[in-house]
């Protein structure tokens, strides 16, 4: 039974996050670790480079290395929806059907916008529970909302379990009317105000909502389990975060905002920063003007922006920065050896202590 280290890749779109996550996974495997990279939606060419033609929700073996390391890739099918989760957890087709066909189910599904992220988290947890891997590299969605997956269990629990709706459900139960939602309001002396509130929504709304919540009670246990397990993992010392930025200050500002968000979500880190796809460090050759003035100006602007950012980062002691020089991976000539080359570059800078296998029994 292995203990698994988790490396979360976070960054905005177009910075090569998915490619880098695959590369890093390969390099770890080459170094002898059993590794899985979980990715949400790989580009066709990346999937081809990895030899993965079919979508699969299970980890697929991509390559075995002489070192004994193995690299697996796993896709998370974003199309899997809440209904899938309901079917799996209730294990009773009649009950699942009742829930899914409820009039409110669709809006709840829409409302819990993080449901795909929740499922990612569930998959993630099953990787840990399997005890098969030394490392799990997780690629996240390319936006500031990428962090939703971390919060998704909280939303779900709030909704299904601890939240106001469950209190309200209790109150709809006639025998328990004194302790519930309505009575709370009545006690606070706002019954009139609340009558208006109810008028605005229409009178059957509350009854139907509580009916659905009662039906979905069996889900609560599993949700709670996943939420706690995943939260505990990402907040433990077995998890590190790699933020990926393009070499310009705008992309980096996004990264800083995302980091603030992550810290607010109690991810202790450590946080590393990868400035990906850097232009060569030497000045832009003057002869580039002959190519096209527009092109030269654009490259010059990119080069200046990159230098400014690299200077700025030097003074920020809270980051452990890695800088990857362009072109690490040519997107049109993507193959497994190109990916490995890029991965090695990160791995060579990765702290040794975080490459040690976690001893049994020490993981929280």
């Amino acid at each position, binding site marked *: 039974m292995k203990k698994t280290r988790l490396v979360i890749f976070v960054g905005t779109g177009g910075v090569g996050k998915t490619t880098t996550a695959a590369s890093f996974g390969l390099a770890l495997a080459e170094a002898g670790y059993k590794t899985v990279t979980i990715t949400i939606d790989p580009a066709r060419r990346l999937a081809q480079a990895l030899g993965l033609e079919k979508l699969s929700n299970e980890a697929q073996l991509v390559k075995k290395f002489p070192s004994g390391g193995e690299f697996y890739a796993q896709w998370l099918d974003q199309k899997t929806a809440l209904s899938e989760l309901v079917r799996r957890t209730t294990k009773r087709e009649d009950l699942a059907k009742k829930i899914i066909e409820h009039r409110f189910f669709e809006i709840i599904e829409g409302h819990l916008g993080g449901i795909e992220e929740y499922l990612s988290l569930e998959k993630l947890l099953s990787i840990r529970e399997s005890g098969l891997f030394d490392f799990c590299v997780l690629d996240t969605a390319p*936006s500031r909302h990428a962090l939703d997956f971390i919060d998704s269990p909280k939303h779900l629990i709030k909704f299904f379990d601890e939240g106001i709706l469950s209190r309200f459900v209790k109150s709809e139960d006639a025998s328990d009317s004194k302790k519930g939602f309505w009575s709370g309001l009545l006690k606070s002396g*706002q019954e009139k105000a609340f009558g208006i509130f109810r008028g605005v929504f229409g009178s059957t709304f509350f009854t139907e909502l509580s009916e659905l919540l009662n039906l979905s009670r069996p889900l609560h246990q599993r949700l709670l389990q996943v939420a706690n397990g995943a939260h505990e993992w990402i907040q433990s010392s077995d998890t590190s975060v790699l933020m990926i930025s393009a070499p310009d200050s705008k992309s980096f500002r996004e990264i800083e905002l995302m980091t603030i968000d992550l810290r607010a979500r109690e991810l202790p880190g450590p946080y590393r920063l990868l400035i990906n796809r850097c232009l060569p460090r030497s000045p832009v050759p003057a002869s580039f003007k002959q190519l096209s003035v527009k092109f030269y100006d654009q490259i010059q602007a990119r080069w200046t922006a990159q230098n400014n950012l690299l200077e700025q980062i030097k003074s920020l002691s809270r980051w452990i920065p890695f800088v990857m020089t362009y072109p690490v991976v040519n997107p049109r000539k993507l193959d497994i050896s190109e990916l490995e080359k890029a991965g090695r570059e990160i791995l060579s800078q990765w702290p040794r202590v975080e490459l040690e296998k976690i001893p049994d029994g020490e993981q929280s």
Partner: protein
Amino acid sequence: MTAKLHFVSGKGGTGKSTFAAALTMALAKDPRNLPILTIDVQGSGQCASLLGIENPQYQIRPSIKINQVWGCKIMPQESFQEYFTRALFPGSGSSMLGEATAGIREKIVSGVFSNSIVKSFIEVCPGLEPSAMLGKIHFECTEGSVPETSTRWKHVIVDAPSTGHFLALFSSIEALTRVFSAGIILRQSAEIFNFVKNGNNTEIYLMTLPSELPAKETLELKADLKQRGMNARHIVVNRIRPNFEDSRAPQAEGSTWDEFLVVEKEIFTEEQEVIADLQSKLSPTDRLMKLAEIQAEPDLSLVQLSDEIEKALI
């Protein structure tokens, strides 16, 4: 006359806020388009900041850079309170409480909203928050005006959330119209949804990048919106690389920059293929806007970008 509503959405990290700001600037060049209100739904307030609206809040504030451009940031709780108040006390006499005085009105509303149970109910109740936010946008288009005047907005530009959260905005209100069996919310939701769906009122811009996945995702979002009766006519491809021809004599600059040129050219070719493919999948009434990669000083690039947009819009 209602204001023209513009939604800017698309994949995360494609420059939505910058585009929304540049679009506002491009429209503001013609005085007939003024006043303009920009609304930030993502909560970062980035679009407003770019336009010189400092520390944007729920309260509408003027730009200190551009005359007659205003901006605000919408938050779910505030939107819902406003939505709720309007539902109870519409301007005309048909209100639920008739001629409630301002004092009573305030008392009731603050009484309801100060209740912590009600507060968290709004937060978790499916579909309420997004619908209330859409309700606020709709209100600004149909009845909103420059603060303390009766001058109506000519354009309302919304820096909307990215793909999934943008869809949720509409799917939730659509679902609400089906779920609420009665009540004021039902009537309002239907009205708002019909307004937003109408192509005469609304323009939708989907931002994307010239590479395989963003292009694919954009077409999927467009299809999803279409299913909900909304036509996202404008596809904006941002950060397109410029072309170049390397006709120089063999160089001695060292290999890294030469290697860079080779890859850069390949990426350029790939980008053009993606754009051509995207174009071929759009209908004749759709418009594909191609924007260059601009990474100079923020202020300068915004002006450049708004010029480009202005040209593309004409």
